[in-house]
């Protein structure tokens, strides 16, 4: 403990446990702190104030707010950059270092960058670095990129566990200061479910660190009373160390607590987020040792750290005097108080200081601060008398100090309110921002609404609690609340112009971005006078603190420079999040859906290489990847010459039933279905209203009023939804059900398929006459109730057998078993794609794109022109009047050793691109390369097309009639 020279006795320090020491390291040196210390408070206890180097000038920086609001406290942990040192608690052996320095933190080799600040005026990177042409990318950008950034990311950082949790409540109260606590109590007493969200580890907010009276007693007394009441209220759920990090529509609140994000839906929202103390602007206002008054109070009361030995106070309100009292009581000498006000108000707190004999300089400011010899800490300040807005007399008084506390004004912690649509305005009289035009279910309580005195904070909370209950229709008469001593409203003391330019500059408006007084003023002079332009041109407010400490000063400066009111200038848009949030927390756990067919495990056992098809897994081919091409060829030949099994379970299935079933299909698809025979199937081609092909399949008619409709694997969900949409308008008497998941499907195909099937199917006449091509039947296969479809996608005799999904594996096993003597083989999707290509069948979305019409793929045969209506029909008529300049053709190339064409190789006409290859493969059945390609619309069989290969070589291919294989379609009709 002896090393912690700034540690105060155990009578103070709400957050720390004086009995538990923790050792950690900073910049390679070990330090001891207490359990409950943040990195910054533990270092402060050890009199270490320098935490990092600034973004541009590498200035020494330390803690300013002790509230995690500024960039300067961002430090590097092992594997985690940009950690707020004033929020992260120390843990045993934690290794911490500073950020953005070259050499050592104490002696940064780039520390002299600020000397060149005049050569880096606002927007300097727009004004230079581009002559001669190309020099930016070649030379300057790499220089800039080398210097940019703060912390270092670790590619190998261990992946922590992050998760999410949903919560619902009547009332969410953000902030547990006096206003938040009293609002929560009223709402809870009225019977609502309340969730109270506090970013610190203890409830209490400003009651925990602020001083509201000369005696210094009322805060803790009020706190104890309110907390007792909260504990007694079972319908208040408390979340501490939890940050409500944004407001989203309908009070959808992300509450981040450690590695968890709660997504909270609240009926009513109370924002009691308090206020943010603002820095003053003077020469060297960024030195370590310059703290906001509230930061000094936080160090003392929360962490038992004495913030310095000898202090100067710069103030313009009672809070500065309250801080002075706190300092005096904890052994800090007060060298002087500079009060910006010409005549301070003689409040009891002021009187007490005055009676203590502290030198008070009314109408004075700190005009400049000076650093000690190592430049890393404040050593003295220079006071001057104010003679006008931002102007001082030339005479100065110097005071040595190692601490300067600044209390000159506040802004409301307005971020969530503005995200909800609230508007910010500025009152010139009180020199403060206020918020209005909030959604009905969004309420402000306490300091965020401008209140300052404890009594008015409590009143504000009570009133807000009642307003919430009113919105929820609850009675609050008879609910008792914390007695207040006064009901007069008041607001915090903001000085309108705590801004003092200096001939040597370094009066920082935005510490994150190293922006000085002149940078803001000069941005306006350069013509960037709208606040958003000032921001974008100067980068003010773009750093890690997002303008929390610069927005007010910038608005004042721009207003002054452009002769407008601060209200007219305004602030830049408040955007989520409130605090920087870990991407891991936002992402949470990864949930990626996968769909497996009923036969999935059999494919794996058979050595299938599984491939994705949307969310489905399907067998690509069966065998080793090194034998891929051979496997596909073998599987192709199994179907062509023998018999194979293909799992087609992923194909969409829809039941369309009802008196209007045929009429409905007539409207949905291009073909005609009214006269389709029962027991037969018919091709389906679906176009969208613009006439673009979006899906295909077959319609199986099992009765007058019942069609079983197939759809593509990727298309079925959309097809189903689209069907329902149309029928919501048409109101046909038809019922549509998506039964994709209810069925497993196996295509048994090949010249021997009938023979194999016959062994397990006795109740259907399988003869060519009894069950001809394109017919559909119902019966049993291997005792499993089944629908059988004789379809010809692969161009051989074959049957698609659709059975309840639960029976899919049994059917697969049965067919493999009885097919053994024919040496039946499983066949994957890759071979199926090849088989269909040999037959010239298109695959929707591979051989069609977002504009392909039936005309372009020569499928006008599938358009029933006499129907009064079908979706896309009118557009197809129009397109007939404006024919496309491309069409899909089949081509062949004799197989050779040279470079083969690939899918997506382009088709040229002269030097013009007229199309591309959509499908291409070597056909083992034909011993040729065959393919489909978009070519000029006048291309006919017998002509040549020019293919530009990936190497750049152009080859010719012969356009042929399709199908490539079995042109007379005899095999599939066997």
């Amino acid at each position: 403990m002896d090393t912690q020279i700034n540690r105060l006795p155990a009578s103070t320090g709400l957050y720390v446990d004086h009995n538990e020491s923790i050792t950690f390291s900073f910049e390679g040196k070990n330090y001891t702190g207490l359990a409950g210390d943040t990195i910054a408070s533990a270092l402060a206890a050890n009199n270490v104030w320098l935490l990092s180097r600034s973004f541009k000038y590498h200035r020494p920086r330390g803690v300013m707010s002790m509230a995690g609001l500024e960039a300067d406290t961002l430090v590097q942990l092992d594997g985690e950059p940009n950690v707020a040192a004033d929020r992260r608690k120390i843990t045993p052996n934690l290794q911490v270092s500073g950020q953005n320095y070259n050499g050592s933190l104490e002696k940064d080799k780039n520390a002299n960058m600020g000397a060149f600040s005049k050569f880096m005026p606002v927007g300097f990177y727009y004004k230079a670095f581009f002559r001669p042409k190309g020099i930016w990318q070649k030379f300057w950008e790499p220089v800039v990129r080398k210097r940019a950034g703060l912390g270092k990311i670790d590619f190998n950082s261990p992946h922590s566990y992050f998760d999410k949790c949903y919560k619902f409540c009547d009332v969410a109260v953000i902030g547990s200061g006096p206003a938040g606590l009293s609002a929560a109590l009223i709402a809870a007493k009225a019977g609502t479910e309340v969730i109270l969200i506090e970013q610190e580890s203890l409830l209490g907010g400003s009651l925990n660190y602020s001083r509201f009276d000369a005696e210094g007693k009322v805060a803790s007394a009020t706190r104890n009373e309110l907390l007792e009441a909260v504990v007694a209220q079972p319908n208040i759920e408390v979340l501490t160390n939890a940050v409500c990090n944004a407001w989203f529509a309908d009070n959808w609140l992300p509450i981040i607590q450690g590695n968890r994000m709660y997504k909270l839906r609240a009926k009513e929202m109370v924002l009691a987020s308090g206020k943010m103390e603002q820095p003053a602007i003077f020469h060297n206002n960024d030195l370590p040792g310059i703290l906001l008054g509230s930061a000094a109070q936080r160090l003392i009361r929360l962490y038992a750290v004495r913030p310095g030995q000898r202090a100067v106070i710069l103030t313009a309100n009672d809070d500065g005097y309250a801080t002075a009292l706190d300092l005096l009581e904890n052994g800090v000498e007060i060298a002087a108080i500079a009060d910006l006000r010409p005549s301070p108000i003689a409040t009891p707190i002021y009187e007490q200081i005055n009676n203590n004999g502290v030198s008070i300089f009314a109408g004075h400011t700190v005009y400049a601060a000076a650093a000690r010899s190592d430049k890393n800490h404040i050593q003295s300040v220079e006071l001057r008398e104010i003679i006008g807005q931002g102007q001082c007399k030339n005479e100065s008084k110097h005071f040595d100090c190692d601490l300067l506390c600044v209390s000159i004004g506040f802004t409301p912690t307005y971020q969530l309110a503005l995200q909800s649509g609230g508007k910010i305005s500025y009152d010139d009289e009180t020199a403060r921002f206020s918020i209005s035009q909030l959604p009905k279910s969004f309420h402000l309580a306490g300091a965020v609404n401008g209140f300052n005195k404890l009594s008015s904070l409590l009143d504000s909370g009570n009133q807000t609690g009642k307003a919430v209950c009113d919105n929820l229709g609850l009675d609050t008469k008879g609910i008792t609340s914390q007695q207040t001593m006064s009901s007069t409203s008041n607001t915090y003391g903001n000085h309108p112009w705590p801004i003092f330019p200096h001939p040597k500059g370094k009066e920082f408006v935005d510490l994150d971005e190293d922006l000085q007084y002149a940078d803001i003023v000069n941005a306006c002079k350069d013509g960037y006078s709208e606040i958003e332009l000032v921001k974008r041109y100067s980068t003010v407010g773009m750093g890690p603190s997002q303008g929390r400490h610069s927005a007010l000063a910038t608005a004042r400066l721009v207003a002054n420079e452009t002769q407008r009111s601060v209200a007219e200038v305004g602030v830049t848009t408040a955007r989520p999040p409130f605090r920087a949030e870990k991407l891991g927390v936002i992402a949470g756990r990864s949930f990626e859906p996968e769909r497996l067919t009923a036969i999935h495990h059999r494919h794996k056992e058979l050595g299938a290489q599984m491939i994705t098809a949307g969310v489905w897994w399907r067998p690509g081919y069966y065998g080793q990847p090194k034998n891929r091409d051979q496997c596909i060829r073998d599987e192709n030949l199994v179907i062509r010459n023998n018999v194979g099994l293909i799992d087609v379970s992923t194909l969409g299935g829809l039941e369309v039933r009802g008196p209007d079933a045929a009429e409905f299909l007539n409207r949905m698809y291009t073909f005609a279905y009214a006269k389709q025979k029962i027991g037969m199937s018919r091709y389906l081609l679906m176009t969208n209203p613009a006439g673009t092909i979006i899906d295909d399949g077959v319609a199986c008619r099992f009765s007058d009023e019942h069609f079983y409709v197939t759809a593509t694997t990727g298309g079925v969900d959309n097809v189903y939804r689209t069907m329902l949409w149309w029928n919501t308008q048409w109101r046909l008497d038809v019922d549509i059900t998506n039964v994709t998941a209810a069925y497993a499907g196996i295509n048994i195909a090949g010249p021997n398929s009938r023979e194999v099937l016959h062994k397990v199917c006795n109740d259907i006449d399988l003869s060519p006459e009894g069950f001809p091509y394109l017919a559909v039947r119902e019966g049993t296969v291997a005792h499993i109730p089944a629908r059988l479809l004789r379809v010809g996608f692969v161009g051989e005799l074959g049957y698609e057998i659709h059975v309840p999904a639960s029976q899919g594996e049994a059917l697969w096993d049965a067919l493999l078993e009885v097919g053994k003597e024919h040496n039946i083989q499983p066949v994957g999707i890759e071979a199926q794609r090849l088989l269909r290509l040999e037959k010239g069948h298109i695959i929707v979305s591979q051989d069609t794109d977002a504009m392909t019409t039936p005309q372009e793929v020569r499928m006008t045969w599938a358009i029933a022109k006499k129907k009064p209506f079908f979706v896309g029909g009118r557009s197809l008529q129009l397109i007939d009047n404006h024919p496309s300049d491309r069409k899909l053709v089949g081509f062949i190339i004799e197989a050779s050793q040279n470079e083969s064409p690939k899918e997506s190789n382009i088709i040229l006409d002269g030097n013009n691109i007229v199309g591309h290859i959509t499908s291409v493969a070597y056909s083992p059945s034909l011993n040729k390369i065959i393919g489909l390609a978009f070519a000029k619309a006048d291309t006919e069989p017998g002509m040549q097309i020019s293919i530009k290969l990936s190497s750049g070589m152009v080859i010719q291919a012969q356009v042929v009639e399709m199908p490539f294989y079995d042109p007379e379609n005899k095999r599939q009709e066997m």
Partner: protein
Amino acid sequence: MPLGLLKYGFASKYPARRDIPAPKDLNKSYDVVIIGAGGHGLSTAYHLARYHGITNVAVLDKGYIGGGNTARNTAVVRSNYISPEAVAFYKASVELFKNLANELGYNQMYSQRGQLTLAHSDASVRTFTLRAEVNKHLGVRSEMVDRKQIREIVPCLNMGKNMRFPIQAGLWHRDGGTARHDSIAWGYAMRAAQMGVEIHQRTEVTGVNINAGKVTAIETNRGTIQCNHAIQAVAGMSSVVAKMAGIQLPIRSYPLQAMVTQPVKPFLDPLVSSAGLHAYVSQTARGEIVIGGGSDPYELYSTRSTLDLKESLIAHTLELFPFFAELKLLRQWAGITDMTPDYSPIMGESPVKNYWLDAGWGTWGFKATPISGKCMAETIAQEKTAAMIQPFHLDRFKTFKLSNEAGATAASH
């Protein structure tokens, strides 16, 4: 230290440059009124003044210069489109970007660090291959790269086979890069103003006057101004403004959201995007990681942020870069995009004579800023839609001759 900055260092008083002129009264009439002082409007104004000698021009904006999508895009410049007409157009834009800083005397920090688009499915591999083949044929530097090459281009990328949709291949577009988005508008504004163009911020257009089928005047909140020509360059609000001229457009407005992290030391030079994961990522010269994704799911004119988009976008981004879990998100924002049915702009003549359209900029407007201004200026000067933008003519919808771009745009803005 570049010479250009010396004068600032040695001046006793800041030598202000006054890039953007101070507000002044509106004239009674102008040769050309440009509605919208974003990149496109200002680029058009610049090209009119610089190359066609037309300087009696007013550029009007209801807000501030470049405050719409110029300020909200993710600064990607690329030309790896899929249709020949689009590739030619964006290639010409890239050529203009290369010389832009020197032409304007204003640094746009344009740099071609390359763009890698990842394919996680067979369908993406096919589409990307087509883009690569079309690009190569038209002189754009694009090529397909395999997993090994991807690892060399971006060593820190997650190439794990345990991803739900492992990376199969990539489209490596060497001409892809970024520029500082705001500064495009500012540079054009500065030069256009120097040549006499007037720029009026906080000047909202409230009506378009038409007489005998020709535009005659523009009404604003500051009074009515006569004009010989008017052009609307108000991506995000195109339908609303066009309606004032009685024109209906095939545009739907969707928010597009993006986000940025706190700055970390640069480690990622190229732009990385993934069609399957709807995410794209780049690191700025400040060290921030910029992350963007797909459009919002329903039409809206509000630039509010949402949590659900952020959650899915970041989850997908972490699949590509798992170590980003420790990075911290600083800010999310949104712009309003004009989505067209064919993912291509609508440029040139409108049904109203001398009222010109520069609309339908979806997620591809920023990268077209220089070439759009050039083509629109040519169009106005010649009173005829420029040849290069003829494929983007509004009339294409009448004959269903849409541009076939749908495959090239998904999530690589």
